[in-house]
């Protein structure tokens, strides 16, 4: 019997398995156990941050399917997110329907908007596509502010508490498990999607669309599908956001949010499911680190007292985008893979 030195595959089926080694399975199991225990022992604020990271992960996964896998730049992801959030808020306020109607409805509505944008955008590429999606974002923001009798405009809209079959999830700790399950589902389905014909077609379109169409990939169908799936994810994430925040306002869904999602997938890693998770978590918690760093600085230089505000977060975040793109274009998932390979191949570096 040959000794297995590294992970290798003996059949194609084995090659495309999601969890390829027993180690991976056990690590993921351990991780899930930690996640399950965390709200019992952890600080409520950490739970709140994880909740936000979950929502960001779902939205970033959606954007990564469209931008990272299919190669269609979108600067209007916040618009689909907003559509989902407002759909949830309005439907649950007006019709008093349970979440399992509300949430899918938000996703489907956002997906319809995605198709509506996707079809005319078929002819556009690169810069033109970026500008078209960006202008869609501006238009949605305008509609949300102006359509006062439905969206309540700049006064914002409050959202009823999420309740599952009569059991209200009225605290962050309770909604946490719900979010973790949904996020796990979203990650699994995105990872699975990329193993199917559809996912392969997306990647083919990204790499060279003309060649893909010669190989029998229907460009129209798949590009629109990418838009629909991506905005479905964004819609679901938006709905969850509305439930978690319990109050939404047009200010939450500006161009900066779209850029934030793009930053997540760039810093995480374009075209990588794991990367979307890394990026989403990273961007969500980075303000906390900056805050802590600012406090540390004020200890050293008392003159800096009260100089810290939100502006520093945003500045650091712009700087991070630039630095990652210039020095580490593959993102956090690239670093992760390098470290992993280094451990796997130890003591031989190659």
């Amino acid at each position, binding site marked *: 019997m040959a000794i297995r030195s590294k992970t290798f595959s003996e059949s194609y089926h084995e090659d495309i398995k999601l969890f390829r080694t027993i180690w991976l399975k056990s690590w993921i199991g351990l991780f899930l156990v930690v996640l399950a225990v965390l709200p019992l022992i952890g600080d409520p604020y950490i739970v709140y941050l994880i909740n936000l990271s979950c929502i960001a992960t779902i939205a970033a996964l959606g954007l990564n399917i469209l*931008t990272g896998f299919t190669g269609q730049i979108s600067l209007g992801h916040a618009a689909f997110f907003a559509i989902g959030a407002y759909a949830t808020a309005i439907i649950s306020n007006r019709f008093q329907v349970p979440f399992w109607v509300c949430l899918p409805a938000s996703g489907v509505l956002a997906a319809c908007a995605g198709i509506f944008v996707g079809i005319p955008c078929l002819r556009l590429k*690169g810069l033109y596509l970026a500008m*078209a999606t960006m202008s869609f974002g*501006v*238009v949605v923001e305008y509609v949300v502010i*102006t359509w006062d009798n439905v969206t309540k405009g700049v006064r914002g809209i409050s959202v009823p508490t999420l309740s599952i079959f009569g059991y209200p999830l009225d605290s962050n700790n309770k909604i946490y498990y719900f979010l973790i399950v949904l996020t796990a589902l979203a990650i699994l389905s995105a990872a699975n999607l990329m193993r199917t014909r559809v996912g392969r077609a997306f990647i083919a379109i990204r790499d060279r669309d003309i060649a893909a169409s010669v190989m029998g990939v229907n460009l129209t169908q798949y590009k629109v599908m990418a838009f629909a799936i991506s905005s479905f994810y964004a819609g679901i994430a938006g709905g969850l956001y509305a439930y978690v925040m319990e109050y939404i306002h047009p200010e939450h869904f500006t161009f900066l949010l779209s850029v934030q999602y*793009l930053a997540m997938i760039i810093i995480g890693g374009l075209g990588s499911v794991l990367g979307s998770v890394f990026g989403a978590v990273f961007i969500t918690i980075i303000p906390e680190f900056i805050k802590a760093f600012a406090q540390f600085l004020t200890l050293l230089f008392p003159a800096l007292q009260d100089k810290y505000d939100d502006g520093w977060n945003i500045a650091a975040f*712009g700087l991070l985008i630039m630095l990652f*793109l210039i020095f580490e274009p593959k993102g956090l998932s690239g670093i992760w893979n390098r470290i992993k390979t280094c451990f796997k191949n130890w003591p031989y570096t190659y």
Partner: protein
Amino acid sequence: MNTEFMFFIQLVVSGIALGCLYALIAVGFVLILKATGIMNFAQGEVIMLSAFICYFLVTTFHVPFLVAVLLTGIIAGLMGIVTERLILRPMLGEPIFSVVMVTIGLSIFLRSMAGILFGHNNLVFPSPFPTEAVKMGGIVVSQTEIWIMLSSLVLAAVFFIFFKYSRMGLAMRGTADHQDVALLMGISVKQVFALIWAVSFITAAASGVFLANVMVINLGLSVVAIGAFPAIVLGGLESIPGAIVGGLAIGIIENLAGGYLDQIIGGGVKDVTPFVVLFLVLMIRPYGLFGKKEIERV
């Protein structure tokens, strides 16, 4: 003449003044786009920063207005060279998506740094132009608007002469046309790129100074540049005359929409109309009025 018609003409005239500003901003974008193929999303922040710089030169340092404008232009030009050297040159050969994102990152960075340095207050520029308006046959035009139109005309002429007759202008056009051939002809493409960024930032500074005269100075000034995107697309992305025509057209359309539709739908139509136009242009004629129509054959 009836008042309906006068109202229309009034809207068109102030639309032209606004359009000149858009055209100026659009030219700043198009210069970089044409020569290097990069869409600089940080242009708006440069405009905003120049407005702030000019304001502080005039108020805090008591520099005469014209000198302040000159100094602002020089500072902006230096900023352009530094940006090109530090941020864009490492990105040579990267996919267009990454390059666009780098400029977006730069724009976020500059805007929040401006917020930290200059604060979030509205500042009012001590305008050097007389405030009383000029009346011409019932149409009211402010003197600032007249100066904006005149200076835009002069700048457009300067650009035209520079690109048509000067040696450097020719080198820039050559580089925009074909980088490899330009390199073989002994043009230093790196130098041309640095200079293009400088010239583009100087244009942005000029529009920033004018904007400071017609609006209050705050961080929101950078958003005005996004309002120039429709102008660029309408003109056809890589054409300087296109940018000018597009800018004027968008200015007039925006004003007309504001004048007539605001009463029907309610406020804010003015701000969103350019984007609706942008969306329509992209759907119907993505290469704009003057752009090259690229044909892909399969």
